């Protein structure tokens, strides 16, 4: 009986490390390495802004990114409209750098995938990011959802869908969920035509969230973008 118990304990001891999921800090490190491997890209994009007071048709253009924090949308003579802190549109800037503390926050089923949740707290007190909560697809080492609380810009929520560029951890589609402030102009200034006298539905008034959806149609990755690309008036 004693021999049997000893054998069982030995077997368990040998097997447990293999069966146990990756440690959260290892998982985060692997994820960060993969994301930060992309130092620049040029992407053909289609942007759809869905904010209650904004009526903007889908905008096609070229999005340039260069690590760590350069981003520019070019629309061939047209206007470019991006959320104010547009560097947050890319994963690279929402994943904390430097020494961090990673906490396992369990798992969650999302769109038929079992995702591991980790919370990342930067050790640097001056870091812009206070906390990042990342939903990770361990099998493909991809961040599927990101909730980053920043020091000055509030919380940024980001959902990713991957396709052709999965190996670079670059999404085909990103949905950014943001808090929206009210927009009002004095009626005497705007001189509206066909203004509605009916009060707005309560749901519309309460809904202060907006989304920015970016569909990446194609990428050119790590081609060494010049800084001059980002210089504009």
């Amino acid at each position, binding site marked *: 009986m004693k021999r049997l118990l000893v054998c069982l304990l030995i077997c368990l001891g040998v097997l447990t490390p293999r069966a146990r999921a990756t440690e959260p800090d290892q998982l985060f490190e692997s994820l960060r390495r993969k994301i930060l491997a992309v130092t620049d890209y040029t992407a053909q994009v289609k942007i759809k802004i869905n904010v209650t007071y904004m009526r903007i048709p889908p905008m096609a253009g070229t999005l340039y990114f260069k690590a760590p924090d350069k981003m520019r949308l070019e629309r061939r*003579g047209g206007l470019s*409209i991006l959320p104010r802190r547009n560097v947050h549109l890319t994963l690279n800037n929402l994943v904390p750098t430097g020494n961090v503390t990673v906490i396992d926050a369990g798992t969650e089923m999302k769109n038929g995938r079992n995702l591991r949740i980790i919370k990342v707290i930067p050790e640097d007190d001056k870091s812009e990011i206070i906390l990042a909560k990342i939903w990770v697809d361990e099998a493909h080492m991809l961040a599927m959802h990101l909730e980053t609380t920043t020091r000055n810009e509030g919380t940024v929520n980001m959902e990713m869908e991957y396709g052709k560029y999965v190996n670079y951890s670059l999404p085909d589609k990103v949905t950014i969920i943001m808090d929206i402030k009210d927009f009002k102009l004095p009626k005497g200034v705007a001189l509206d035509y066909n203004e509605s006298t009916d009060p707005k539905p309560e749901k519309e008034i309460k809904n202060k969230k907006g989304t920015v959806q970016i569909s990446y149609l194609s990428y050119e990755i790590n081609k060494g973008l010049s800084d001059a690309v980002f210089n504009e008036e």
Partner: protein
Amino acid sequence: MIQLLRIELFKIFKRPRTYISFGIVTAITSIIQLAMLSDGKSFLAFGLQGIVDQFDIRGNIMNGYLVAFIILQSLLIHIPLLVALVAGDSFAGEANAGTLRLILTKPVTRPQLVIVKFISSFIYTVLLIVWLAIVALFLSLLLFGPGDMINLKSDAFVLLLRDDIMWRYAAAFAFSTLAMTTIASLSIFLSVFADNSIGPIISTMGIVVVLTILSNLQLPFFNLIKPYLFTTHMIGWKGFFDDPLPYKAIGRSSVVLGAYTLFFLTATIIYFNKKDIKS
């Protein structure tokens, strides 16, 4: 009838005051264009302040399309005055000069004369709007270049893509012509009551100013009468710069303006038919 129309057009375009209107349109648009060239950014900053806090807008915002829109909005009161300058003079000017009786001694019926004066005022209105399109839109495009256009409403931010704007301007100018034709018919109507053209011109302006104020007052009582005032519908051209296009509202405005024009024209014919012309 055609001969009579030619004579009426000759009379309109022979008068120097006719060209004052074209000069005024040119002067106002040039002043606004110069102001936008020198300080357009601060003007825009005021309108966009609630949006630039959250969104980063880059590119040629102050482009020709936006400047033309600002000009048209600024000329809301001025263009009716310029139309009234000519239309208000149509009968009253003749009465003042003592030529009305002379015309009516010719083989022309009174309704024919009213219709010819209405058509000649309409042609003048069309030419004024075409001139406005040239100096406000095409000159602005030349000075500021084309681009996507921003339209700021009191509770909305509308962006129109540059390829989707020119037809909107064509429709807006056509609608403005309809609105100004209503003003012309009102002026002609007032003109048959007077023997001096200043009266109908000032009366037209008075009516337009008072009704425009009522149309823009945000009081529940005025909300009841607003849909029946033609001044409420005169800004229907702005509907073409909305997205989605308010077809129903634009259609309703066109019908109201058309009905007012018809009413003023019919009333003019009825009154002028019975009028005892002494000069």
